[in-house]
């Protein structure tokens, strides 16, 4: 194996990860190589240590592709997976519109709906004059009053119950969980009443509630604050679940969720709140059940949602430079799945890779794989790949935490493996 060529490829692959410049300069790189005996196993090991990629394809465990490379890397894995510019066909036209951050987009959607409909209100901890822990409701209490931006005592099960009661009697509340993980306390109300009462009352009572909050793995927030609740709620009948990933879809999904007559859980990600994008000035509402085609392609379908979309797009840059043409779909609707969009994509590419942040067991990927297998088995040329977080509580230590989240190099590797079929 030509070591310099390989090294070039590796360094090119490293470029997108923001590796320190010193390691990229050819002089230092080649000097590093020069120190190593050419053609030996140690070259391969050294290269793999530099890149974090495994050169040998032996890291498939029982599940397929889900493990981390055994060699711990000398370089840091990417933490900052915030794409500066999303390659998407669904963003607005380039120069019109206005730029804002994701949490501001959520607020804009919220404000527009509250102005439009006086029965819309927000219920949660510190949502009033404090403006919300992530500033989503900043300034709104002054505008709409304390009754419509209701500060609650710390009792998630109960204020969710309150919102359900209010929804049954004419209001359209939005429940903000300070962190999605806290909504585990509200599980009884959500599973036994929220999803159920429309059905058990014979359709007499509707519950047009929106439950939202930040979830996902953050920056060293500890295990209790890094919960991914989409896996737990997906079985509850009667609920709809959507996940936003950009300011554009955050605003659109927020508005759609508020207008929906069904209970909707809107999953936001704690690390995406400061994502900036230009969104249209005119009003728009997205469809809750639709997936978003982020990048059309021919070789493989990559299904993802929330923060992993951005990790996927980073990986796509590498993949494109390597000559692959992946199709990226942000599934957005976690329950029910947009099997039309997904199916059309599978019929085109015949290979699927799912990239999610959920735990492996019982996660969204698990259900999605089952659904794709059931519906599109004949279209598949390869087993469905799925990259997810491991079944461990999220550790606090930074490097450990990064190891539990799917990183772009793993996505690149998984795509390469699948495309060999």
């Amino acid at each position: 194996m030509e070591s310099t060529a390989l090294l070039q490829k590796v360094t090119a692959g490293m470029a997108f990860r923001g590796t320190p410049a010193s390691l990229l300069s050819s002089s230092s790189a080649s000097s590093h190589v020069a120190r190593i005996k050419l053609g030996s196993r140690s070259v391969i090991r050294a290269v793999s240590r530099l890149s974090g990629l495994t050169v040998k394809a032996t890291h498939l465990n029982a599940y397929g592709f889900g493990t981390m490379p055994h060699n711990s890397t000398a370089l840091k894995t990417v933490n900052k997976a915030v794409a500066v510019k999303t390659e998407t066909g669904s963003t607005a036209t380039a120069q019109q519109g206005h730029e804002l951050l994701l949490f501001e987009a959520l607020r804009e959607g919220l404000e527009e709906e509250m102005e439009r409909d006086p029965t819309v209100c927000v219920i949660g901890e510190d949502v009033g004059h404090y403006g919300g822990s992530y500033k989503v409701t900043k300034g709104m209490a002054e505008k709409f009053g304390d009754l419509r931006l209701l500060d609650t005592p710390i009792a998630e099960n109960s204020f969710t119950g309150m919102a359900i009661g209010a929804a049954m009697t004419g209001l359209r509340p939005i429940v903000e969980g300070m962190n999605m993980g806290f909504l585990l306390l509200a599980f009884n109300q959500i599973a036994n009443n929220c999803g159920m009462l429309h059905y058990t009352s014979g359709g007499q009572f509707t519950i047009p509630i929106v439950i939202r909050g930040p979830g996902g793995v953050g920056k060293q927030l500890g295990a209790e604050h890094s919960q991914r609740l989409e896996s737990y709620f997906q079985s509850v009948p009667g609920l709809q679940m959507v996940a936003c990933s950009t300011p554009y879809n955050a605003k659109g999904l927020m508005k759609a969720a508020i207008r929906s007559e069904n209970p909707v859980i809107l999953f936001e990600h704690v690390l995406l709140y400061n994502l900036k994008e230009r969104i249209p000035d005119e009003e728009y509402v997205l469809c809750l059940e639709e997936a978003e085609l982020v990048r059309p392609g021919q070789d493989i379908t990559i299904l993802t949602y929330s923060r992993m979309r951005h990790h996927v797009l980073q990986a796509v840059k590498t993949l494109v430079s390597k000559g692959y043409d992946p199709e990226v779909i942000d599934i957005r609707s976690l329950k029910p799945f947009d099997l039309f969009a997904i199916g059309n994509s599978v019929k085109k590419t015949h290979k699927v890779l799912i990239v999610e942040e959920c735990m492996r067991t019982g996660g969204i990927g698990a259900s999605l794989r089952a659904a794709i297998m059931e519906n599109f088995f004949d279209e598949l040329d390869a087993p469905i790949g799925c990259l997810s977080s491991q079944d461990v509580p999220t550790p606090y230590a930074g490097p450990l935490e990064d190891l539990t989240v799917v990183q772009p190099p793993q996505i690149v590797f998984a795509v390469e493996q699948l495309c060999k079929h």
Partner: protein
Amino acid sequence: MYETMAILQTMDNLYYEAQRQGRISFYVTSIGEEAINVASAAALSSDDLIFPQYREQGVLLWRGFTLKDFASQCFANDEDSGKGRQMPVHYGSKKLNYITVSSTVGTQLPHAVGAAYSLKMAKEEACTVAYFGDGGTSEGDFHAAMNFASVLEVPVLFICRNNGWAISTPASDQYRSDGVVVKGQAYGIRSFRVDGNDTLAMYSCVQAARKMAIEESRPILIEALTYRIGHHTTSDDSSKYRSITEMERWKSLRDPVIRFRKWLEGNAWWDEVAERRLRATARNEVITTMVRAEILKKPPLSDLFKDVYDSVPVHLQEQEAYVRSTVTRHPKDHPSDVPL
């Protein structure tokens, strides 16, 4: 009020027996709590929203739920407004402002607070009323709901039917406080304790509480002391954990229906003849509606997948198609009283 209480007793006894005969699967009687049910309902207005636990059928009866409606729900036939989706006694009626019963204990308390918040925002002249038992006061939802109601200053009545038993747990094992009324004080809520077996006391208490709740936009807690003469449900045999003499004593000496009747008779507003006639009519009507409801068809298969969402999404349509294909393949196994 007395007539409603008598009809309620008759209905409860007949449905209990029907369950024992295997005609319905389950029933919850309110024997011993007729005064709480009916007197409180009578003191409220029909605009007040009721959030029941599951032992408040007397409230529903007062509001106008017919014996036919009760039968339809218990037999889960196609006349049930709940479309056969809940167990017996899990009644619900949007028309009568009675929120569908959910088995989970205490979850209706925060609902009541939220709905009261909704009424407050709409500036309606009505309140919400949440019923629960002594056992329900141990649930976390009870405490948070009381706290919220107090902080938010919403018009909600918390009516605790303290009947001394939570299945087999006596009140002395449920809490060590001086009943439930003191808990209201801890949350800054004006609280009342009333003899729940005294129909007139119950009526005046709820009437006064309602006025306070609406005029001052504040929650009120009412602890109504009573005794659960019947079993917890048809799945329970309370002689296993309490003495039969205790039950008999309450039934014969302290029954609220008899007590109220004696007062009416004392005022010459009621007599033996009227009593016999009422009981006979009630019994006949309950039995007639029961027999009729029993043989009616069940809700159709087409309703099974509706109302999960506002419209039936694709994955549920697929699931329905699958069920239908199973029925088509095995028509003999499909029950004859379930239309497609």
